[in-house]
């Protein structure tokens, strides 16, 4: 059965998008949910790092990623994309920011455009999971403490040395192959030269 290639029609986001959205119950119902998410996405684009409840942050993240990926793939001359941006971004200066700042920033990214962290829990009270949602590449101090990229850690030293070894072996192999082919070539060149001399 030939399945049409829909990968170009709908952008595949680099975050997990569940099949059903959260309802985010409120007095205004589904419309209120969308309004709230609009405000959240506007805030995210504007401030580039916001603190909010985990559930709303997760939903807003999906919409923000979709917005940015649409902007990247279609650009600002595309009318439907402009309408989407107009709907989602309540402050119109941010539409400029989206197309002129964020698109060039995220054009060549292989990863998602946003990052969400779980904030520390508040004890002695009603605990609602809080999160920090931010756009990657923001100018603020980083929230990750990840040290695993440190090239001096033991595992990284060992792996780098193994990689170097492997590459050296490969280069040697390739050099060997090249020299062998050259030898063969020279042999072949020599043979036809000798033949006419013999015949003559």
């Amino acid at each position, binding site marked *: 059965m030939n399945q049409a290639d829909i990968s170009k029609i709908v952008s595949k986001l680099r975050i997990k998008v569940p099949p059903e959205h959260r309802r985010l119950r409120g007095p205004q119902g589904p419309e209120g949910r969308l309004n709230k998410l609009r405000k959240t996405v506007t805030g995210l684009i504007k*401030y580039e*790092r916001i*603190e909010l409840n985990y559930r709303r942050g997760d939903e807003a993240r999906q919409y923000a990623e979709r917005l940015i990926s649409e902007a990247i793939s279609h650009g600002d001359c595309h009318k439907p994309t402009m309408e989407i941006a107009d709907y989602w971004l309540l*402050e*119109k*200066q*941010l*539409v*400029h*920011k989206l197309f*002129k*700042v964020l698109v*060039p*920033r995220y054009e*060549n*990214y*292989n*990863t998602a455009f946003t*990052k969400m*962290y*779980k*904030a*520390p*829990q508040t004890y002695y009270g009603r605990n609602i999971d809080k999160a*920090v949602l931010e756009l*990657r*590449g923001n*100018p*603020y*101090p*980083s*929230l*990750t*403490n*990840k*040290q695993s990229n440190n090239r001096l850690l033991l595992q990284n030293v060992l792996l780098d040395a193994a990689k170097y070894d492997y590459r050296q072996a490969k280069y040697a192999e390739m050099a060997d192959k090249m020299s062998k082919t050259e030898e063969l070539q020279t042999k072949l060149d020599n043979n036809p030269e000798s033949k006419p001399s013999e015949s003559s």
Partner: protein
Amino acid sequence: MIPRLTYVINILKNLERNIIQSFGYPPKELALAYAHQKQVPRQSTKFTLKDLVGDGILLAVPKFRRTVEKRWKRKFGSPDYVWKMLVPKTNIAICNECGHHHERGRLCGNCYKRIETETKEIQAKIEEKLGNNKPIENDVIVLYDGEKLPDETKEFWQGKRIVEMKKERPQWFSKNLLQKTTQQPSDSKDVKPTDLA
């Protein structure tokens, strides 16, 4: 409507009866017909225990013995629903940077507090300096006291929004962040993503 009518009629009747009783009855000789009303002496209304208990008080009472399983279920709960026992938290890790405890998978509270205050300051500065009315067309670069812009062509810096914080760079905010914005200008083709997790 009708209940109201009967209500009014009842009131009138009561009124009539009260008036006649208060003013006394007319003499018997004048009456057309009268009924003998036996003055039944009212019994003394003493309330004894027998009246209370009498045949017995009807109270709710357990019909069957509560099984030990049910007792346990009430006391301890169930892991499928609500577990009523205290469960030790085994997901507490120690932050490498500051040595404080935090839940694994979440941000370290101590580190986050410090970064949060700094972020809010920068955000406030951006709002204050760059305003909210003009269309935003460039990235923001944050510079601290005594810092110069990295070496780049003047065209690169034109239009870039620079925010100067009037304080020293905190030790934990590394300068390398600037490298992201000091990427080569757009005419070079091999721009690599710098933010791989």
